[in-house]
């Protein structure tokens, strides 16, 4: 999947919630968001409003964390590409 820099996206994974307290979303191995197991809905955990600022190749993974340990999903590769430039504002004329 390809997303534009700073474009919000969501990440979902399937899980049974057993022996789990929280879920971590890792981007390139670093935890960027957590969700409590309470937010597991019909076996799906969702991370909304994820954004990545660095253009390039990345990986996402979801880690289920419980009191006795954790288990991490297989990584999902994705690419971040430059986004559309923002609109210039405050255009002004100066007489010289």
């Amino acid at each position, binding site marked *: *999947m390809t*997303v534009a820099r700073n*474009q*919000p*996206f*969501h*990440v*979902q*994974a*399937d*899980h*049974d*919630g*057993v*022996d*789990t307290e929280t*879920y971590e979303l890792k981007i390139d191995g670093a935890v960027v968001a957590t969700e*409590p*197991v*309470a*937010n*597991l*809905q*019909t076996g*799906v*955990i*969702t991370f*909304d*409003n994820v954004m990545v600022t660095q253009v390039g190749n990345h990986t*996402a*993974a*979801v*880690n*289920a*964390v*419980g009191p*006795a*340990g*954790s*288990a*991490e*999903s*297989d*990584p*999902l590769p*994705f690419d971040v590409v430059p986004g559309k430039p923002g609109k210039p504002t405050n255009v002004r004329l100066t007489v010289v």
Partner: protein
Amino acid sequence: MPTKPTNLRMGLGPAPPPTGNPHAHFEALAARPDCLRSYSLRSQAQINSVTKQPPNIFWTYDPANDTHPLKQDACKLWKPPRSQFTSWPALVTHPHTAIKSLGNLGDETVYLPLRLPVHSSGSSLTLTWDFWWGSEFQTNKGTVNAWKSIYVETNPTNPTGEGSKTYQCFHQLLNTALVIPANGDCCAHHSDLGELGNKAPGVTDNDPFFPTGLGAAPLRTFVMQANRWTRYLFHIEKAVPGSAFTSWRAFTGADLTGGTYDRVSFWAWDPQRDPVRVLFEVPVVRDYPFLNTQRFSFDCSTNNSTGGGLIGPIVAYARNVVALNNAAVVEGDPVLFARPIAG
């Protein structure tokens, strides 16, 4: 130890609402041993059984003949403006004279409330239900600006009799935003947070200040979205000694004095949003001993006798009421606090 999450996937923008069995939450809770009463409200016979003057014509379950474009598998509230009562066949032919004779002038109250017996006898009562506010509450509101909608009623002497004295009362305010039918400020009307005008120290009519501070009611407001299921959970721990209100003491710096109080918490959430603490461990004075009934009522003080009232029908759906006895309510419980699913 957890198993590995699987089927990792991504998508642009926010995730779509969850799908699945819309009644899974109800079925799971109704099967628990601590379930006191459960009402799916998905049967006209059940709806009529909790109606004082049946059949109920305001609250109905008939999905096969429901013509609403967003119809739900749930008990439907449909109420025309009072000005149309005399041309509403189901009303003018109703077997009860008091209903049949409702004329075209008067307030816009829904005249056949649902009174669901819960007959709570344990040390705590937990109530949860789903409610879907149609956008008609906003677009057809006319001059109606608030609804008293959900009550828990008490009885002074009878543990199984119909409740009469209102213990809790939630106003659903209607604001000016077109997409929001009800402001959702469930703690806006707290003159009934404590019966007979008696209140715990620190609790005012309009602002029981825990957990976010006096004057912070807007911060814990849950703004309900039109045409979306909202789930509610209401937890009443009965007759708790003032000294046991540890969270209250931590916030106020002083013990709660004056005897025992009910400790009341209330959450609201929907398919896209996490539960919000509207009330959390607020001390409440209850003067009558028996918590007997939950009432879906929809009273308002606006009437068309002076040129006001609704300008079109209001539509809502209710479903899946469960009363639990002595339940442990822990925020984050994946069953109790599961998000509602459309359907």
